């Protein structure tokens, strides 16, 4: 499919020829020769191209993208890329403001839940899949699970090139399990009740202070609130919106889901939501530092665990299991992902260069895995069968989490929805507010936001 190596061999010969010819010819002749040479290289002639590219910050993913892009610009010296990154929760907002002010980057990584907004406002450009290296649109869509690619296509055209898609997993501290007499494999919770029970046994308290929380929900940012509540809501048979666009998070299923969410703290006494918010900015730090035994998280790179808790990494005494469900074995998490996209405000030649750049960036999926494991890529081909990939511990769990998760709601008012849910969860967990009442307020907020968006 992607055959960069054979193409790279040619220009060396042409360079020598080119130099001899250039010395003899004038500018017009030189221009003709250069035009011919460019057929062999990825660069679009010698015209300098300046691009900006934005992504979210992550200690593994961001450097890998920077590395691949730098490799590309090394090989195509006329292309300069201004590489910028932003905190995960900020990227969408910065992009919105960028589009609004005409300062948006030409290329960027889009979180998949923002795709509807970009598409609705016509802010991203359709992509030519043949330039990305696919022989046809059918070949493109078959390289990804439908769920991933559906969010990136519209009217038969592709608007995004899915890069990473992954699901959350339940990370367990196996040492803690054994300490309280549980088996980390057999006793890994498969239902929400089991999660509560197991968490309760894992909890260690010192008076009113939680020395160790059995389980912890992340509560520090709206993005995490959404990701963590989404699968519970869907699993309980609920939905975010009904067919008419009204927010239904406050119906019976929604209340049931939120009750489950609150039960770990309220019913089982295994979580301390106030502590969760107040301390380390990053909630998984509590899990790293063994102040929590279980935690829902995106795939965590072993290097990160090594850096935070070398003991836990070296033994190792942690493992990943699937989310619990409402029925045993029917647990699934949120799956979300990132697409490489191109701004519709970029000029034609920059769009072309971006196609080539993306093709190059994605041309070595195994390299991606090496740098960013265990963040799973969305594509099916080119990496899953690689022995290095297969040898990764618990690899099948990551694949299952990716393939069987549910998506975050794709709505035009995602920011408002996330903020409303975040407020509701805080009220419920921190102020022991009534669940139905809080969800009613959240749903009303979302409906107001939807109405305001529609009015334009």
């Amino acid at each position, binding site marked *: 499919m992607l055959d960069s190596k054979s193409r790279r061999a040619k220009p060396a010969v042409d360079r020598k020829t080119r130099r001899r010819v250039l010395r003899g010819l004038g500018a017009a002749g030189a221009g003709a020769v250069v035009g011919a040479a460019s057929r062999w290289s990825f660069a679009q002639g010698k015209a300098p191209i300046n691009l900006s590219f934005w992504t979210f910050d992550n200690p593994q993913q961001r450097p890998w993208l920077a590395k691949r892009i730098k490799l590309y610009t090394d090989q195509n010296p006329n292309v300069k890329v201004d590489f910028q990154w932003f905190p995960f929760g900020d990227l969408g*907002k910065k992009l*919105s*403001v960028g*589009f*609004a*002010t005409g300062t948006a980057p030409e290329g960027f990584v889009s979180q998949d839940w923002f795709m509807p907004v970009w598409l609705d*406002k016509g*802010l991203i450009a359709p992509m030519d899949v043949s330039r990305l290296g696919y022989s046809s649109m059918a070949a493109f869509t078959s390289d990804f699970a439908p769920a991933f690619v559906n969010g990136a296509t519209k009217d038969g055209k592709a608007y995004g090139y899915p890069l990473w898609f992954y699901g959350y997993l339940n990370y367990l501290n196996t040492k803690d399990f054994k300490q309280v007499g549980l088996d980390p494999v057999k006793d890994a919770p498969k239902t929400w009740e089991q999660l509560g029970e197991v968490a309760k046994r894992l909890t260690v308290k010192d*008076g*009113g*202070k939680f020395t160790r929380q059995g389980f912890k929900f992340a509560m520090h940012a709206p993005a995490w609130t959404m990701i963590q509540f989404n699968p519970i809501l869907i699993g309980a048979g609920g939905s975010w919106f009904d067919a008419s666009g009204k927010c239904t998070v406050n119906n019976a299923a929604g209340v049931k889901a939120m009750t489950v969410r609150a039960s770990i703290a309220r019913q089982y006494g295994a979580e*301390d*939501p*106030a*502590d969760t*918010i*107040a*301390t380390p900015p990053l909630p998984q730090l509590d899990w790293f530092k063994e102040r929590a035994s279980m935690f829902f998280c995106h795939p965590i790179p072993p290097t990160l665990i090594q850096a935070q808790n070398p003991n836990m990494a070296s033994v190792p005494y942690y493992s990943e299991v699937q989310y619990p469900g409402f029925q045993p074995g029917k647990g699934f998490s949120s799956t979300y992902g990132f697409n490489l996209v191109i701004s519709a405000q970029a000029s034609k030649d920059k769009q072309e260069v971006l196609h080539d750049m993306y093709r190059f960036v994605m041309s070595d999926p195994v390299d991606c895995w090496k740098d960013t494991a265990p963040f799973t890529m969305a594509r099916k081909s080119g990496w899953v069968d690689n022995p290095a990939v297969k040898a990764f511990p618990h690899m099948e769990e990551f694949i299952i989490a990716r393939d069987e998760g549910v998506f975050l709601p794709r709505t035009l*008012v995602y*920011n*408002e929805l996330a*903020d409303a849910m*975040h*407020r*509701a969860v*805080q*009220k419920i967990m*921190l*102020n022991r*507010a009534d669940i139905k009442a*809080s969800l009613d*307020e959240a749903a*009303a*907020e979302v409906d*107001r*936001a939807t109405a*305001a968006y529609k*009015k*334009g």
Partner: protein
Amino acid sequence: MNGVAAPARAKAGAAGLRRGSRGFGARYRIQLWGVGFILPTVLFFAVFKYGPMLWALELSFTSYDMVSAPHFVGLDNYRSLVADPIFRETLLNTLVYIGGSTVLITLVGLGLALAVSTRVPGARHCMTAMFLTNLMPIIAVCLVWRFLLHPHGLMTQLLHPFGVDRIDWLTKSTTAMPAIILVTVWRFAPYFMVVFLAGLLAIPDEYYEAARIDGATALQRFRYVTLPMLAPILFFVVVVAALLCARIFLMPYIITGGGPGNATRVLSMLIYETGFSYLKMGRAAAISAVLFAIMMVFTFLQMRIYMRREEAYLR
């Protein structure tokens, strides 16, 4: 002031006349200089203050997401704000915050100033030390206090001897706003301590002596000598503190993020979120107008005192 200047100016005018017909020319020239001195500032404010405010008022009657052109919606933004429980709560939070912080800043500032003014040994150093807290970068203040206000953080630890095990300062809606007010007072009171102190030091000792001779107690001296002499400064402090608090953004943003729920969200945060997170610039402008109205009340108060002092001074 003018009385003193008048004969001098008359002399100058006469001198100008003596030098030729440049008397009126000289005065005109001086006037021009005056205008010239203030012109850059006035222009600056026209571009960066008045222009934007008028634009904001105009925007508040439109719906504008910045991607497409603004379109006129009349009073819709304001109507929807009134109907929005989040906005109403935020407005209430802001008023509570301004009220609570201003009162406490004034009381604590005055108290600290009184304590320092007793001129006990080391008072000056104590004052300088406390004043330093006013110079600490606000972001550092917020980050430090967020840790101090952890359920098991330093503030709770200090209350251990009183049998308190844990206080969820930032995560219970009953204590969240008081916690933010606490941080605000900590940050701003020392500045006003210095303002009050200057006022206290300016009160002539003779007044206190006279009161003492008349048999007044310390409390009575405070009430009948100190307070009346401090009245203008008191008013100034209240108004300036209120203006400062109305604008606050960083404290709730960093320390509680507006939570729990909506308990500590203030108008400046709502403006930022509505404009830059939801891209509803028209609506954000309407909220700005509300905040502007609140500040206008306090500013007019301040202008009245200032102008009245001017009259008294110039008379």
